[in-house]
């Protein structure tokens, strides 16, 4: 099912959670809404589900107005961050809930319910837990119950709110792969909310990066990583080295020193030169656009980082640079920084 979000705005008192958001999710896609907390991603998911109504704008399922329908009638599977399992029901009854509440012509006979629930429980690989109660399950098992329960109503749209947020790292990785697999098996369009970029990049067909109630960029995981559309996306996804600069007369300067870097069409004014740590080489101080004093070198696992202090007219700026293997760097020495691949964004004046 194709989902169209058109011009959706949502305010909570004075806080604008969503600001004229437009988004099209294609049928059968797995899309991740990625952003820091407060970026509006969960609000957008809840509006698609029908748990929240926008102040203005439209939501369409396959071209039909979805806002005219309540959450009951939208037939979307929703997996809550904290699972929201019914404590007084065992696993079987939790999953059967969506089938048991059907009335009238949709009402299923008991045998059909049992068959469907058992099928779902084996699909999520917890058929042996059918008689247990939620309090007796581990986090990963609860997650699977929540998913099976959401799938019981045969939804065309599956919405997941931070589905792995409450799990430990190992279980999270395992469930992530399994969810991707499940999505491919089922005729379902999935939207996933997460603040974990690794999760979004690994799992999703397309990533929607959100910040401050707006969509910053929509693209494949490779696109948003390699070609961030805004400084926000560059900062938020992957690691970033931020070098200060200024565009004057179509050239980049650091203080009074011309950098000899491409301003990439950014208008005159303060700018930020953003690069991935592995795209910045350390070189002889005299030959590079940036040079500074090494303050400290730190090692975590396979990577080493150096704090380099760049002196400028506006006071010292400390940046963190990656130290390649086989290169030694001593605190107190001068080092040059040469960005090989970089993006220039104008710095908004605050």
């Amino acid at each position, binding site marked *: 099912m194709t989902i169209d979000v058109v011009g959706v705005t949502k305010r909570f008192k004075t806080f604008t959670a969503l600001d004229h958001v437009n988004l099209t999710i294609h049928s059968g896609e797995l899309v991740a809404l990625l952003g820091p907390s407060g970026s509006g991603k969960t609000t957008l998911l809840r509006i698609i589900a029908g*748990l929240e109504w926008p102040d203005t704008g439209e939501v369409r399922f396959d071209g039909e107005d979805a806002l005219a329908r309540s959450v009951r009638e939208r037939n979307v599977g929703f997996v809550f961050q904290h699972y929201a399992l019914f404590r007084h029901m065992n696993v079987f009854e939790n999953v059967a809930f969506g089938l048991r509440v059907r009335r009238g012509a949709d009402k299923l006979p008991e045998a059909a319910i049992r068959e469907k629930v058992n099928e779902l429980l084996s699909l999520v690989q917890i058929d042996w837990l059918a008689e247990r109660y939620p309090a007796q399950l581990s986090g990963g098992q609860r997650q699977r119950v929540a998913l099976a329960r959401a799938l019981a109503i045969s939804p065309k749209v599956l919405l997941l709110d931070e589905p792995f947020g409450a799990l430990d790292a190992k279980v999270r990785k395992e469930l992530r792969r399994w969810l991707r697999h499940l999505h491919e098996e089922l005729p379902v369009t999935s939207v996933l909310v997460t603040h974990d970029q690794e999760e979004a990049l690994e799992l999703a067909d397309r990533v929607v990066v959100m910040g401050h109630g707006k969509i910053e960029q929509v693209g494949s995981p490779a696109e948003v990583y390699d070609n961030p559309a805004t400084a926000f996306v560059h900062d938020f996804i992957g690691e970033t080295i931020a070098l200060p600069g200024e565009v004057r007369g179509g050239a980049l300067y650091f203080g009074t020193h011309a950098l000899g870097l491409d301003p990439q069409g950014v208008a005159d004014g303060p700018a930020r030169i953003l690069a991935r740590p592995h795209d910045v080489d350390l070189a002889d101080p005299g030959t590079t656009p940036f040079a500074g004093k090494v303050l400290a070198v730190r090692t975590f696992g396979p990577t080493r980082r150096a704090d380099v202090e760049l002196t400028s007219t506006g006071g010292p700026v400390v940046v963190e640079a990656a130290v390649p293997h086989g290169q030694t760097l001593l605190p107190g020495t001068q080092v040059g920084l040469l960005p090989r691949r970089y993006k220039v964004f104008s710095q908004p004046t605050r």
Partner: protein
Amino acid sequence: MSASPSRIAFRQKSVIPGFGLTMGLTLTWLGLIVLLPLSALFIKTSELTFDRFIAIVTATRTLHALQVSFGLALVAALVNVVFGAIVVWVLVRYEFPFKKVVDALIDIPFALPTAVAGIALTALYAENGWVGSLLAPLGIQVSFTPLGIVVALVFIGLPFVVRTVQPVLADLDQELEEAAASLGASRPQTLVKVVLPSVWPALLTGFALAFARAVGEYGSVIFIAGNLPGVSEIAPLLIVIRLEEFRYADATAIATVMLVASFLLLLIINRLQRWAELRGSRNA
């Protein structure tokens, strides 16, 4: 671990010290405040011969009074559970002007002298009172009938239900209801299948408290009841009457029966509540 096993049972190494001191204080306190008066009651009752005891508690007047007290307390507690639950729902789930005032009003039956409540209710529901004058043409008489007793008991019992259920409903995760709705459940289905099972133990506790309070209530009831022996005479009043007649042993005999009956009923409700709680969290 050099301590003998019998010592370990009472004094385990714990991060919460002071078990001996607090337990001792608890037992002393309970003994002084609760058990001492109760045992005096039993000792006084034991002055009677067994036959005399049976004769007193099976006298028609006594049986009627007990029936009125327990029966109407049960009715009042049931009414309070239903309407108290609605009051809680409104207080927890909706925002409206003067909500704080309404919330504070709930506690008034706690604080008001029961005699004042009784007199006020009697005046209201008497045939020439504000409410009574409206009901009289319909042939409904409240003051000086068992119905009046129920009204008084409902009044004094309401806060017990509201204050026990309120925090539980407030803590109930609204995601549960959202989940039910997203699975296609209607509001009534969500209430019956999801909300009620979660607040059920609290409702039972509220019921037990309102019931216990209603069984022992005296002040407000004697004004509105009419106190007709065999019709609207409550057991606590009968006890007072016996005391005024200097028939102390008779009074304590009735009190003993009330005590034992209340204890048994509360025990049953307590078991019910435990069962509902267990069913709610985890089941074997």
